[in-house]
C-alpha cells in the first residue's frame, strides 16, 4: 500500500531527526524534519499535506515549536525542546 510506504518513510524521518535526546536536538533538526516531511508530498504525489498524516500530538507540538523557535529561526530553550520531543515521541508511537 502506498499509504503504508508513506507512513514508513515518515517513521524513518522521525527516527532521523526527532527520536533524540534533548541535548543533541537542535532547531536545524526541526527545520530538516519539516522539510523532509513536506518533500513526501511531491515524492508520492499527495493531494493533501503529508503533515495531515501525523497524529494529533505532532500538530500541537509543531505549533508550540513554531512559537518557541520563532518560526524555526531561533534556538529554543531546553524546556521547549523537551516538551516538543515528548509530544513527538507520543505521536511517533501512534503511527
Amino acid at each position, binding site marked *: 500500500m502506498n499509504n503504508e510506504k508513506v507512513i514508513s518513510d515518515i517513521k524513518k524521518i522521525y527516527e532521523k531527526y526527532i527520536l533524540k535526546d534533548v541535548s543533541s536536538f537542535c532547531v536545524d533538526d526541526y527545520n530538516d524534519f519539516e522539510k523532509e516531511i513536506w518533500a513526501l508530498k511531491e515524492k508520492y504525489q499527495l493531494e493533501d499535506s503529508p503533515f495531515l498524516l501525523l497524529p494529533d500530538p505532532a500538530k500541537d507540538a509543531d*505549533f508550540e515549536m513554531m512559537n518557541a523557535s*520563532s518560526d524555526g529561526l531561533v534556538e529554543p530553550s531546553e524546556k521547549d525542546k523537551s516538551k516538543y520531543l515528548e509530544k513527538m515521541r507520543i505521536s511517533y508511537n501512534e503511527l
Partner: protein
Amino acid sequence: MSRSYELDSLKSREQDAFQRKQAAFQRYADARDRCNEAHDAMQSAWEERVSAKEEMNREWEEMQRTSANYREVWDEYGRIRDQNNYEIERLRAEADSEHQQMIDCFEQASNCYEFGDKSEAPYWSSQGHDHKDRRDSINEEVSRLCREVKSARQNAKWRAPKTDSSAFHRAKEVFERAKSRHESAQAEFKRLKAERDRLKDTFDSLQAEHTRLKEEFQRKLEEVKLAKKRERDRTLDKAGVRWSERDDAKIVKKADGTTQVYHGGLGKGDGLGHGHTVLDQFGNKTYDRDAFAEHGHQNYADDPLKTYPGKGQWGELRHGWIDDHAVTWCEGFGVNAGQTLICDGHVDRTYFDSHHDHYGPDTKYRSGGRIEDVTDSLGRKKYYSGPGK
C-alpha cells in the same frame, strides 16, 4: 531623548517632601487651632478672674468702711464710759464719806440727847440730815452717770453692730476659684503653644527641604530641557528641517533605531500635508519628503538595501519599502511556501529572527486560518505596523 532618571528621582523626592510638608502643615494647623482655642479659654478665665477680684476688692472696701465706723462709734462710747466711771468712782467715795458723816452726826445727836447737852442734839441732827441730803444727791448723780453709760452703749450697739465679713469671704472664694481656673487654662495654653511652636519648627524645616528640592528639580529640569533642545536641534540639523518648520516639527524615535521627523504642512508636525524625514541609527538621512510633496520612491536615499542569507525553510532576508514604510522581510518556501515574515524598519538578522510577524495561509494542516491566527500564542503581530496589516 531617553528619560532622565536623576530628574525622575528628584521629582519623586520633591513630591515625597511635599507630602511630608503638607502632613506637617496639617499637624501644625491643628495644633494652632487648639492653641487658639486654649488662648480664648485662658482669656475668658482671665476676665472672670479680674471680675471676681474687683468684686472681692469692693467687698473688702465695704468691710473696711464698716469696720472704721464701728471703731469710731465704740471709741466714742469708750470715752464716755471711762470718763463717767472715773466720775462715778469719785462720787461714790464722796457719797460714802457723806454717809459716814451722816451716821456720825446722828450718833452724836443721839448721844447729846441721852447723855449730854440736849440743846446740841438738834444741831447734830440737822448736820446729819445735811449729810444725808448730799449723799442722796451724789447717789442721784451716780445713777445719772450710770444711765448715761448704759444709754451710750445702747446707742453704739444701734449705730455700729458687729462687722459682717461673710460677703467678703464669699467673694474671696469666688476669686480663688476663678484664679485656679485661669492658672489651669494658662498652663494648658502654654503646653499647647509649646507643641504648636515645635510643630511649626518641623513644618518650617520640611518646607525648607521641599523648597530646596523643588529648586534642585527646577535646575535639573532646565538642564534636561536644554539638553533635549540641543539634541532636537542636532536631529533637525541632520534632517535639514527649515527654520520656519522647526517649532512645530515632531520627532519620533523608533525601536529599530531610526528617527522619524515630521515637519511642515498644516498645524503641528504630523498635520495634513506634512513633510517626513527619516534618519537611520547612525544619523544618516534615508528618506526625505518635503511638505506637500508626492509620496514615492524618489524620496528615499540611494543607500543599497541590505540582504542576509536564508535560513531553514525561509528565503533571503531583505530590507525594503512598502510605500514610504521601511521593512525587513523574507518569503517562505517548501513547507512555508506562500508565507511571509516581516517587521518594521531596516534591522539586522539577529534582531529580525526574534522580532517579526508571520503572515500567510496554513498550508501544513489546512486549518483554513491564517498562520498568524493559529500559531501566534506568544502575542506577536506587533512588529509590523505598515500597510496591509
